[in-house]
């Protein structure tokens, strides 16, 4: 797209554009692009911008503008000179920083760095400032050549405007961009209807109902107007009980498993209330809503998880020590060899993995022990959102689609009242209540996606883009503390203001713009990069297996989950010297059968095997024989024994710290489950058959009968994958691309309806392709990976030009495109044949184009042949062209230290700080 930026652009600019910028102050062309409602607050010309991680000797010169939305740096080499359409992001371009994104501002004097406090104003002469952002980027500006006095205006404006005092000062109130069109395919959960359909989707209607006791937010200010409670509870009971809980938040239903176990989020009782009766009543109702009247498992997150302050500290440490390009280039390389322990020292890996562990725990309890889980937390708005949404991602394939994921975020985070204003530090008074919980969540999702690249509809790019959008205050999605404030600001601005602070202010009505409307930020081609091409194959495999009733024996997926070299499995190691992956799959169950002597394990041949084996094996070293099949009623036995105030069993305390997988010592029951994680995946014995048939159209894929045991195995949720011809994600110009049609029936799967003479043309069932109904997420620290695409991309020297993931991504896109078009061709040919057979005179409706297509390299870089674009390894949006001057204006200023002879002697074991000319990558 940006390939034809007109560098030589005389007709438009005329001669004066090409004078050296220092010479003219009010350059007409050097103006930022303003959004409607955006106002320039201050500006300074002849400001130098330094590249990140450079020696800060050379900068590009330009004008710095501060508006009520962003800081914009405009230079002649920036993209404003070209076509605004060339911007990858329609709202914020490369050299612009959203004010809400600013975390800290430093004044730099040589090696010394002094933090500038928000709300203060500077008097002294500041040469250079560094702006550290919440998205880990750092922007350094020098006012060395700036006309005297201007820098003060600018810095003071930044200090003043980036830390607003009131929520009404956020830009989303001032922005007059048109409101977003509603994104139809996803649920926003702002009304009762969405909740109802969610309850129905989860088949929880029997035990749960949508409650409207919170109309006009009379019950709780942080809960939405509609939420879901046990059916047996009356509105009055809820009203009464809610007073006892912190934040007036009684237990709220979040999600239900097919076996009727649910996830409930609940606040703790007020500290001044000693009587736990109300809590017990609530829990009793939760218990009653369970078909088998099992007691729920209560996870006390406050006591078993790191505190919010710890997470924030760790986040800052991660940023400052290892990911953030604060340092100059020399320091950066000096620290490089220590980076691993710095990452470890930040404890961020620890926090990420603990969240995954906790989520796994919830999953175990629900899918294995078949008990409901109550996540209890102070106000149940923070960590419980992380854990609950992670657990749902693990268990419910629906949430692994884009729309599903967005619905999940809406449900668990936005409407159930995660305090974004506080946690993101949108307002200066909340500065010390910040905690990057949503970022933590995204990191966890990325870990899962990294572990299961085939199972998510969205790509890494999607997550990164979402991460980037968090601090874009054009959108209101991540700006408010609760549904109530969002509601009030958008409907009754004046009233709300009087209620809130009694101040006089101009009435501001919020125009609601959702971050999920991606087309307001990105172009269609870029939105295409959000899609994971492999997912469509996963859908097809799932659909095909389901439709064909493929017996389990043909299904091999475990081999990729288990290490290839388990000594116990090395019967196929061929001389002990070469791994043979495929052979392991067959022997996993065998090994486990011998290990546990449990005949039942042989049954779990399909999806259950993947799950069980992972956990079974992981537990092997310490607990050889203790496994067996777990007692389903185990959790019931704990009843009554729970000490303390309540009879409810709780899990608390330091669960994870010392031993990888050991549960808290006084919870023996649970820990044995943990060890013997055996997952007979929702066999039909666990729920009545009527339910299966009822849900068959909604969300269950039947995998057919096991040949030996005659037991039917089902996979929950796979029906959200569409069958082949109707998988309808389309990317067309002027159309919103992300659509997932849910309404198609399996019968419309054409090649299946009309199997060829061989009995099946597309051998999806033969593919060694995993379809997970549940993800066996690995959660030990060894499995932690740094999300380098996201965290490290501001460090240009770490960019692997022409390498990294993007080539793989495009390769796969092209492959999948080929497959899809072949498929539709095949389909077409079938039809021709059919019609020929029938001698039908009717017109055949033949479309030759496949229903779906993924972005390929040529789409993404039109105008350039593939070989001339060197993609950055970090972000597919950033493309490195043959001409580095165009897209990376500021990169040019770094003279490559490699060629400098003076650095050779002293580099020591520093790596080469290479800033290579992209010409050398391209052979003509």
């Amino acid at each position, binding site marked *: 797209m940006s390939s*034809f930026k*007109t560098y*030589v652009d005389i*007709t438009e600019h005329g001669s004066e554009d090409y004078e050296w910028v220092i010479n003219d102050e009010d350059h007409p062309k050097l103006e930022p692009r303003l959004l409607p409602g955006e106002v320039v607050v201050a500006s300074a010309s002849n400001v130098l911008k330094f590249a990140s991680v450079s020696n800060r000797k*050379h900068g590009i010169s330009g004008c710095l503008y501060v508006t009520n939305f962003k800081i914009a740096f405009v230079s002649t*080499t920036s993209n404003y000179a070209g076509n605004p*359409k060339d911007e990858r992001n329609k709202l914020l371009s490369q050299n612009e920083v959203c004010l809400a994104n600013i975390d800290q501002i430093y004044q730099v004097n040589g090696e010394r760095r002094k933090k500038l406090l928000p709300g203060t104003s500077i008097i002294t002469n500041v040469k250079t400032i560094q702006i550290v952002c919440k998205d880990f980027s750092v922007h350094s500006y020098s006012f060395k050549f700036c006309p005297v006095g201007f820098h003060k205006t600018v810095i003071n404006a930044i200090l003043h405007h980036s830390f607003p005092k009131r929520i009404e000062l956020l830009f989303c109130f001032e922005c007059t961009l048109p409101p977003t069109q509603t994104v139809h395919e996803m649920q926003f959960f702002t009304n009762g209807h969405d909740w109802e359909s969610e309850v129905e989707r989860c088949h929880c209607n029997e035990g749960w109902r949508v409650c409207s006791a919170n109309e006009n937010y009379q019950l709780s200010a942080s809960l939405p107007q509609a939420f879901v409670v046990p059916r047996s509870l009356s509105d009055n009971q809820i009203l009464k009980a809610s007073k006892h809980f912190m934040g007036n938040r009684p237990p709220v239903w979040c999600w239900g498993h097919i076996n009727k176990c649910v996830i409930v989020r609940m606040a703790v009782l007020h500290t001044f209330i000693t009587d736990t009766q109300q809590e017990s009543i609530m829990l009793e109702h939760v218990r009653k809503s369970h078909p088998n009247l099992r007691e729920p498992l209560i996870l006390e997150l406050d006591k078993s998880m790191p505190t919010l302050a710890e997470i924030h500290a760790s986040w800052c440490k991660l940023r400052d020590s290892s990911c953030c390009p604060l340092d100059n280039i020399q320091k950066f*390389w000096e620290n490089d060899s220590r*980076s691993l322990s710095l990452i470890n020292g930040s404890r961020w*890996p620890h926090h990420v993995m603990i969240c995954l562990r906790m989520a796994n725990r919830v999953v175990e309890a629900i899918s294995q022990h078949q008990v409901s889980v109550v996540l209890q937390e102070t106000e149940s708005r923070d960590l419980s959102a992380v854990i609950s949404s992670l657990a749902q991602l693990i268990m419910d394939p629906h949430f692994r689609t884009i729309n599903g994921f967005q619905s999940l975020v809406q449900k668990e985070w936005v409407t159930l009242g995660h305090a974004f204003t506080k946690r993101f530090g949108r307002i200066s008074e909340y500065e010390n209540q910040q905690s990057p919980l949503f970022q933590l969540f995204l990191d966890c999702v990325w870990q899962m996606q990294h*572990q299961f690249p085939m199972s998510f509809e969205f790509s890494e790019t999607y997550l990164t883009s979402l991460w980037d959008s968090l601090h874009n205050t054009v959108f209101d999605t991540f700006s408010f503390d609760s549904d109530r404030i969002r509601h009030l600001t958008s409907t009754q601005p004046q009233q709300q203001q009087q209620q809130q602070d009694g101040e006089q202010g101009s009435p501001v009505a919020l125009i609601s713009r959702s971050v999920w409307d991606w087309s307001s930020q990105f172009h269609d081609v870029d939105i295409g990069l959000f899609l994971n091409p492999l997912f469509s194959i996963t859908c097809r495999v799932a659909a095909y297996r389901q439709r064909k009733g493929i017996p389990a024996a043909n299904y091999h997926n475990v081999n*990729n*989950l288990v290490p*290839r070299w388990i000594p116990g499995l*090395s019967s*196929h*190691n061929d*001389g*002990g*010297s*070469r791994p*043979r*992956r*495929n052979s392991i799959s067959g022997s996993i169950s065998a090994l486990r059968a011998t290990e546990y002597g449990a005949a039942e394990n042989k049954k779990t041949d399909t999806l259950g095997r993947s799950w069980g084996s992972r956990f079974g094996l992981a537990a*092997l*070293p310490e607990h*050889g024989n203790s496994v067996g099949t777990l007692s389903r009623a185990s959790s019931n036995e704990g009843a009554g024994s729970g000490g303390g105030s309540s009879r409810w069993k709780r899990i608390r305390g330091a669960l994870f710290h010392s031993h990888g997988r050991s549960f808290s010592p006084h919870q023996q029951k649970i820990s044995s489950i943990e060890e013997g994680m055996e997952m007979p995946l929702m066999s039909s014995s666990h729920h009545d058959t009527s339910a299966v048939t009822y849900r068959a159209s909604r969300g269950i894929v039947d995998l057919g009968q096991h040949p030996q045991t005659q037991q039917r195995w089902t996979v929950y949720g796979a029906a959200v994958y569409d069958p082949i011809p109707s998988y309808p994600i389309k*990317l067309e110009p002027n159309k919103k691309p992300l659509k997932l049609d849910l309404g198609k029936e399996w019968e419309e799967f054409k090649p299946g309806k009309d199997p060829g003479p061989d009995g099946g043309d*597309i051998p999806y069932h033969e*593919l060694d392709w*995993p379809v997970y109904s549940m993800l066996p997420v690995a959660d*030990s620290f*060894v499995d*932690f990976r740094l999300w380098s695409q996201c965290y490290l991309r501001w460090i240009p020297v*770490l960019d*692997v030009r*022409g390498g990294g993931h993007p*080539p*793989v991504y495009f*390769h796969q896109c092209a492959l999948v495109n080929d*497959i899809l078009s072949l*498929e539709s*061709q095949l389909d*077409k040919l079938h039809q021709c*044949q059919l019609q020929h057979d029938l001698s*039908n005179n009717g017109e055949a409706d033949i479309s*030759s184009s496949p229903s779906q*297509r993924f972005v390929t*390299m*040529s789409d993404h870089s039109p105008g350039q042949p*593939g070989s001339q674009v060197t993609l950055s390894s970090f972000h597919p949006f950033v493309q490195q062209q043959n001409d580095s001057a165009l897209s990376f204006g500021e990169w*040019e200023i770094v*003279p*490559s230290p490699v060629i400098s*002879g*003076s650095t*050779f002697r002293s580099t020591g*074991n520093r790596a080469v700080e290479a800033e290579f000319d992209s*010409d*050398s990558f391209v052979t003509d």
Partner: protein
Amino acid sequence: MEGRNHSSDSLASNSSNSKLGRDSASSSRGSAVKSLSSSTSASNEYFPDFDSKVTIKEPSIVDSPTPLLTGEKIQGAARDVTYLCPFIGPVRGALTVTNYKIYFRSSDREPPFILDVPLGVVSRIEKMGGASSRGENSYGIELICKDLRNLRFAHKQENHSRRNVFEKLQQHAFPLSHRMGLFAFEFKEEYPENGWTMYEPVAELKRQGLPNESWRITKLNENYDICDSYPAVWAVPAAATDEELRYVASFRSRGRLPVLSWIHPESQATITRCSQPLVGVSGKRSRDDERYVQLILDANAQSHKLFIMDARPSVNAVANKAKGGGYESEDAYQNAELVFMDIHNIHVMRESLRKIKEICFPTVDDVHWLSAIESTHWLEHIKCILSGAVRIVDKVENHRTSVMVHCSDGWDRTAQLTAIALLLLDPYYRTLRGFQVIIEKEWLSFGHKFAQRIGHGDDRHSDADRSPVFLQFIDCVWQVTRQFPSAFEFNEHFLITILDHLYSCLFGTFLFNTEQQRMKEDVKQQTVSLWSFINSHTDEFINPLYCAAYVEQHVLFPVASLRQLRLWTNYYCRWNPRVRPQEPIAARSRVLVSLRSHLQRRVQELQKELDARLARGTTAVSQSNEGRSTAARVSSPIYRTIGDYEIGAKWQWKFNTSTISTHLLTASLLSLLFMFAIGLTFFGIQSSRLSQKQAELTNLSLAIIQIQTEVQMELKELKNLREEMNIALYSNADSSGDNGDIINNREKRSDYNKGSQNNNQRSKTSKKSKRKRDENSTTNNDVLSKHSSNTKHAPKVTAVHLERNVDFVTTGSSGIINRWHPQYWAPANNSLVVENLKLEDNNSSLVIPSTGLYLIYAQVLCYAATKDNNSYEVRVISQGATSSQSKIIAQCSAGTTILDNDITCYTSVAQMLQVNDRVYLQQIQKNRHLLMSMGRSFLGIVKLI
């Protein structure tokens, strides 16, 4: 253990081996005999195996026999042995020792637990416990292996089986220490490919373009008498005589004089490798050596400097002086610059690997995993090697400088550096066979002492000469493959296989220290090459992500930062079930590739079938169908090969002219075809000779495709023509907008606003036939013409001053400074008219509008990062001539000795120039950093008469 005495029963073992081919398909049932990896095909690696029920049918054997290779014999056995697995606990079974492997088979499990370890991997054998030891499983044998694991077997004290097993193990694990031969000499397996013929030194040098005018190939060392650790064939500077080579060899440690390793196909910059000079404490000099180094430098005409990369830390290099070694002093080697790479010696590496083993086996320290990795310093060493290689590549590729690499002896670190540098530079080495060449060449023939470093068949486990140098190299390669997943033809499995057989002693490839020894032992005749095995089973080792068209071509620059490196857990931690590999994306792509080929086949079949039916068919409907499907095939090439990423685009929001015209053409052709089809249909109803018409139709459509391509060709030519016409019409500003395609007229208005795009670029894009609307596309070629439009009476001046408004540019490999930007003299009173001058070739060349005498002036300001000079040439190229025919009309050189300085160089010349001559500036040194801001660098031209 077994019911029969296997030790003498080679017949039985042979018979079981004969089934290997079949058994490999039935691997997973455990009961099936599985033998060695190497002799069986595993082409079904990523695919489900279909559990064929092939089992051994040998009724005489009660227990399953130990699978044996050809030439393998059972040496000893013990029943009632317990294998103490650190992960799943003790396993009871029977143990067999052969002359190749140790084979354990459990008796208490179904399917049996089988352990099959080649003895070559064993580094040390120890007895656990003595006669007095009590407690279960405390008495037995422990094997410490080179592949980062330990195996422990517990024996019963009563039956005295331990002594026998221990003795046999000792003997056959360390055959050389017991005056026996290695197993590789007994292994006789036939493979369709012969790996020994894979690498031919002369052929490889020829591939690099040798010999040429400055390098020759010599067989001086044919009898290994000059240097016993070097190969027989060398490439040396052509100017060096044999006599000189002998003298030079005497000044280098162990006679390892500088010999060519790789030569850049374009710039002739070379990588040479050698050992340290024998300088000693007294600082000896050798005139021959100095002259020889100068010859190497002179062989590369592009550079005035030679970089000597000393892989050692400088301290070590100085310390080596005491032992008579040392490094090249700058006084003695005037034009060379010495750089120390800071890679530590083999002892440090060995220690580091030992720590890796500590953290990986048997248990992983979960909480401190990252810090533990850091504390081993292994990744730091990897980083040093990688960054050293990147530095070499940078010198050779970007600076066209020759590089000489050495360490102390030039067989450990040097091999690492050169091999990786070659891998990054030359895409050939990134293929499956190319990588084998690199190992054969840089490691085996140049005398990396594999026997010593690995300790094949030798029981001195604490030998200080052992070191994981080669493992480190493979690890580096893995790191690069991880950063460039689609640049390599081979996969991770290939690398692991190489490492496994590095120890196994099954193949002759890695045996012995030098080429000379291998010749003496007749390794090529007596043993099988690892490459025989690998090249016979290439399916397994191919990387499905390999994408030659896109990445293959360029030079790789991996990022040598610890943040981008990762511990190779799939190798180091592969024994540990806790450490889980990521779900293999590559395997998935492999599945997809096979699925695609399946579908393609299927589509073809169906198409054929359909065609066949239609040929027989009689109904009109089927015929119109046929017409359609033919049309569809013509119109949209739905798939093509994967490599070019040009699968028919769906978003047609960018068109350029040629594609639109192609579209029109296609559309018209289609409608023609369709009408034809309808006509035929009509005809078909009336006539009975339909089938003939059918054939005609197919022929016709073929013809139409042909015509289409021809028309496209013509369109292309037309476009070229038009460009030339534009050149001719440059003075006619207003009419110059469009004379080409009809479609362009629509965009005419916007063209002026959208800025200019020079012709060259545009034609390049139009060739690409993308269906993209190129919004910036323009035909406004004469960038200056507008200015001259409305002034008629003012005096005319033909002149232009070009500058570029950026701070820094790096000139590319061509050195041509491009993207000049015309700088206007303000036409304040219209007294002066600047006449038309055009910029072409990426705005690098000024096109002379009319014949005359011109004054050309230029100044280039160069950032002197190195002690280098700044030289550029003003060149002229006449119309139609190729770039090699350009002539220099002025040259300007300036130098400085002060670093961090700007060197400026101004020149001007008056010259007669013909019409359509092109004037451009070319930097002589490649990849220089030029300061391009206003007034610093410029190019100008004034027509005098």
